[in-house]
């Protein structure tokens, strides 16, 4: 009997990306005190190496998909897609962070290690095939994120962000855990496939109210993580208060992983009661889009604006989830990739522009950037146009596939309202472009340094990726479409 608990080599290979990330993160923590203060950025390169290693391990795992550890994990195409995505987000974040950390005199190994731990947690989340594993992954990822949000210990805004994030995050996680307990009570299992089997079995199926309640509680926990209404309140405060590169990371990595488990839980375990949860997601999607877009209209702080924008985009993704279809799932996957590039790009410009202590974070501060730093302004414009969803950018095809999936699922009204919402959104993104190009340069652009190599690399990489996704979307969509067939 005990033999069965020994994982086979194949199973370990399937889990190898997370093993690498945790190992490298631990190594960084151990060697951190031994590294000279001026050389801390070397640890960042170690972290990058770890991420590259994890990515190649993911490619290895792709050749041999299947369950691991008594089917607690499911390493399928879907999981590997999201693993690669969060690893990519990690790479972009670290490369964009070097200049920031140097500027704030806050270079240390913990920063990089925390990002690695967070990504390892996200890796567990996206591979989890079981509610307890899912919870563990979520916690690994979240706790690292809480610390990252308050990374600059002496900065009041960082402290506030971290505390809010932690308190509300724990609150929401409690709901999730409570929901897990309910579903275990109702079905006697926490395995997603098993739950589904029990729910579809006439003889075994528990009272629908019991299942609905647990689905609702789990929904609350996950909706909080993806900042869907009515659980989005934390996002603006946290994104505004956290260091800009961390905000970029939070809006792309943990969010993508949270959407992945959203898909897995609701498309697998709760699939039998889809007609019950679909209307809830419908309403939540609409409310999320409206709150995000309309609140963003009035923002003058660019980080806060991007936070609301991030809420609005979560709303679009919720539309795709509401379709409850395989092409909807593929649309979510494509969107998260496109969103990661354009949002990290936009935040990278903010990181660069805000200067030490993040003094310049008002939209008006960008006045005349088009004259002072035409390349920076042009790249930011690409990201903003993609966030609007203008053709030839990844954002366009992201929205296109989402709304096409919604129409295919007969969600006509949600599509119409969603499109109207994205028209509203054009206003606040375009306003930034107007400020950059049509206002006279002010004092905020006087002492602007040239872009550092790391930020430059991230900007160019993200811009090129955004455009490639906009011209040749099949490159990701084919992969997403193949991986979207979830294990049922």
């Amino acid at each position, binding site marked *: 009997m005990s033999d069965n608990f020994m994982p086979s080599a194949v199973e370990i290979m399937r889990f190898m990306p997370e093993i690498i990330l945790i190992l490298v993160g631990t190594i960084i923590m151990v060697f951190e005190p031994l590294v000279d203060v001026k050389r801390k950025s070397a640890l960042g390169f170690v972290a990058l190496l770890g991420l590259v290693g994890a990515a190649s391990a993911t490619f290895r795992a792709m050749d041999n998909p299947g369950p691991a550890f008594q089917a607690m994990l499911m390493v399928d195409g879907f999981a590997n897609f999201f693993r690669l995505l969060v690893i990519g987000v990690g790479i972009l974040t670290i490369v964009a962070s070097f200049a920031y950390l140097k500027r704030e005199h806050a270079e240390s190994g913990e920063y990089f290690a925390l990002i690695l731990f967070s990504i390892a947690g996200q890796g567990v989340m996206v591979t989890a095939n079981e509610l307890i594993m899912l919870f563990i992954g979520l916690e690994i990822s979240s706790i690292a994120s809480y610390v990252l949000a308050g990374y600059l210990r002496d900065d009041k805004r960082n402290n506030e962000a971290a505390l809010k994030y932690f*308190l509300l995050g724990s609150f929401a996680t409690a709901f999730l855990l409570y929901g897990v307990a309910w579903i275990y009570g109702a079905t006697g299992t926490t395995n997603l496939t098993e739950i589904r089997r029990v729910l579809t079995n006439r003889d075994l199926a528990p009272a629908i109210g019991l299942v*609905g309640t647990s689905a609702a509680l789990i929904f609350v926990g996950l909706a909080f993580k993806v900042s869907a209404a009515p659980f989005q309140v934390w996002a603006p405060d946290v994104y505004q208060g956290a260091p800009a590169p961390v905000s970029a990371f939070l809006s792309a990595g943990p969010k993508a992983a949270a959407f992945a488990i959203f898909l897995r839980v609701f498309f697998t375990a709760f699939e039998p009661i889809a007609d019950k949860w679909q209307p809830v997601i419908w309403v939540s999607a609409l409310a999320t889009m409206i709150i995000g877009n309309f609140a963003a209209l009035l923002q003058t702080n660019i980080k806060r604006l991007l936070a609301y924008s991030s809420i609005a985009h979560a709303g679009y993704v919720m539309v795709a989830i509401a379709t409850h279809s395989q092409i909807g799932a593929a649309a979510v996957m494509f969107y998260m990739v496109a969103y990661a590039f354009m949002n990290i790009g936009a935040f990278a410009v903010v990181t660069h522009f805000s200067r030490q202590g993040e003094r310049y974070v008002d939209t008006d501060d960008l006045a005349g950037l088009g004259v002072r730093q035409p390349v920076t302004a042009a790249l930011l414009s690409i990201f903003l146009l993609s966030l609007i969803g203008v053709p030839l950018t990844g954002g366009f095809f992201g929205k296109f596939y989402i709304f096409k999936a919604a129409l295919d699922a007969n969600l006509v009204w949600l599509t119409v309202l969603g499109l109207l919402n994205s028209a509203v959104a054009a206003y606040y993104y375009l306003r930034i472009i107007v400020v950059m190009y049509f206002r006279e340069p002010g004092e905020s652009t006087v002492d602007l340094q040239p872009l550092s190599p790391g930020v430059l690399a991230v900007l160019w990489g993200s811009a090129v990726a955004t455009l490639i996704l906009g011209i040749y979307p099949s490159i990701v969509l084919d992969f997403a479409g193949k991986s979207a067939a979830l294990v049922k």
Partner: protein
Amino acid sequence: MNDQQLWLIPALPLAGFLINGLFGKKFPNILVSIIAVASVLGSFAWVLKTLGALGDLEHAHVEHYLTWIQSGPVNIGVDLAVDRLTAVMLLVVTGIGSLIHIYAVGYMSHEGGYYRFFAYLNLFMFFMLTLVMGANFLLLFVGWEGVGLCSYLLIGFYILKKSAGDAAKKAFVVNRVGDFGFSLAMFLIMVQFGSLDFQKVFEAVKPLPVDQTPGILTAIALLLFVGAAGKSAQVPLYVWLPDAMEGPTPVSALIHAATMVTAGVYMTARAAVIFQHSPLAMDVVATVGLITAVMAATIGLTQYDIKKVFAYSTVSQLGYMFIACGVGAFSAGIYHVVTHAFFKALLFLGAGSVIHALSGEQDLRHMGGLAKKIPITFAVLACAWVAIAGVPPFAGFFSKDEILLAAHHHAPWMYWVGVITAGMTAFYVSRAMFMCFFGSYRGHHHPHESPFVMWGPLAVLAVLSLAGGWYFKVPHYLEPVFPVAEGHHDETLVYISVAAGVIGIGLAALMYLIKPGLPDTISGALGPIYKLVYNKYFVDEVYDATIVNPMVAGSRGVLWRIFDAGIIDGIVNGTAVVARTVGGGLRLLQSGNIRSYAAWVTLGCVVVLLALGVMSGGVK
């Protein structure tokens, strides 16, 4: 078949564009020129290598690179293809393109924005090559729009000159009309045949019986021709081309004479199968071509700006090419594309050399007697002159002859109109030559001969203008693509058309060499008619009066004042107020107070629980 790396042909100029466009500002001019010229020469070399490797090319050689758009039954790939038609176009585009790039190195040497010019020129080459190599309508359209964009950028190259900006805008707007037709044609093809692939569409069209072809093919053919008429400056969409001469002269030669404007002819020939299934569309093509040829030639008779003369000549010659397509002699049309590329590029570049020599003077009335002052330019221009005038055995003679014979075979009256036009062509080119090079010098500048980098390419083009028609038997080469219609070769018809050319030259000599007062007498005698033609039939004015002004007035009066300012702004401002109010309301939720946030989360949770847990039957 073996892989030929066709993608390299367009990719090389694209690389040139990227390098010069991104970093050219910091490069010295010499480096910019080397990159630009080398990329196009490399492309030319690769064309030669590929054609050599592909052998006789009886069948199209297609290379598939990517599946670009895949959505349900729609499957569009990035596929490049080479068949004999494309081979001819490739040689013209890269060959002439290389010569013009070299010439431009000299011509543009004193201009600002040197790197920008060459970046645009390289980008143009990329799109033009995509256009001729694309294996489906969409890729052709990508190239089509791309060359339109480059044309726009290059016409307006002198950004500080208002007339250049206006001309660029005009070209852009007029071309939109044509592109609209082209897009509609593509949609119809997609709906009808479920594909945009040339091979698939044409194979589906081929077996259809011609005499009872469904009207949809006529619609497709006519819409395609609207596109072609826009790009190739046919009546009534030709008005942009003469204005396009505001761009630098190498641009006029490359884009607005040798290559881009022939894209419409190429596209018509490419879609020949569709056109052949619609006799009506064929008649429209031939008639429009004929009207264009005559009309533009008459305008050419009266102009004084040397580039304008050649511009109207281009419009007229493009008309010729469409006559050929319309009467079913597609290979003759492409033949004329080739020979015309030789002599018209030469005419423009030669004119550029004259303008360069006179430091920007373009008015024929301020020239004269330049034959001795700039002998090389005169010598090469003389080659273009005899070529375009249809003097045997030079280039223009062969292709024009083919077209006129085919026209006669189709309808004798078309032949006669064509012959008269040929006479006019010979006249206006001779007139320009006489006014420019003979008599006494009437200008103020001190003419100087152009450097070798400029006249070197001219010499090559001169050789091509003289021998190209005889040496390159294009119709014979194109036989696998366009089977030659039977038809006897009538010697008399050839003599007549040659005679028309000679008479044209003779008349010009009489009026501008022997009796210089004669033109004024004639124009005086013709009075109103002369004025009508001199003012280009007032077409621009008619367009202004009937389309542009009403549109501007309507936009100002109705759309702007009433619709935009009143209704739209009202709605927008109203929406903005609502949106801001909503936004302001939402902001109140965001107190920053964590206890209230937690309260919201709890409240939300209750709502969701009610919705999911209770409503779904929990409280039964």
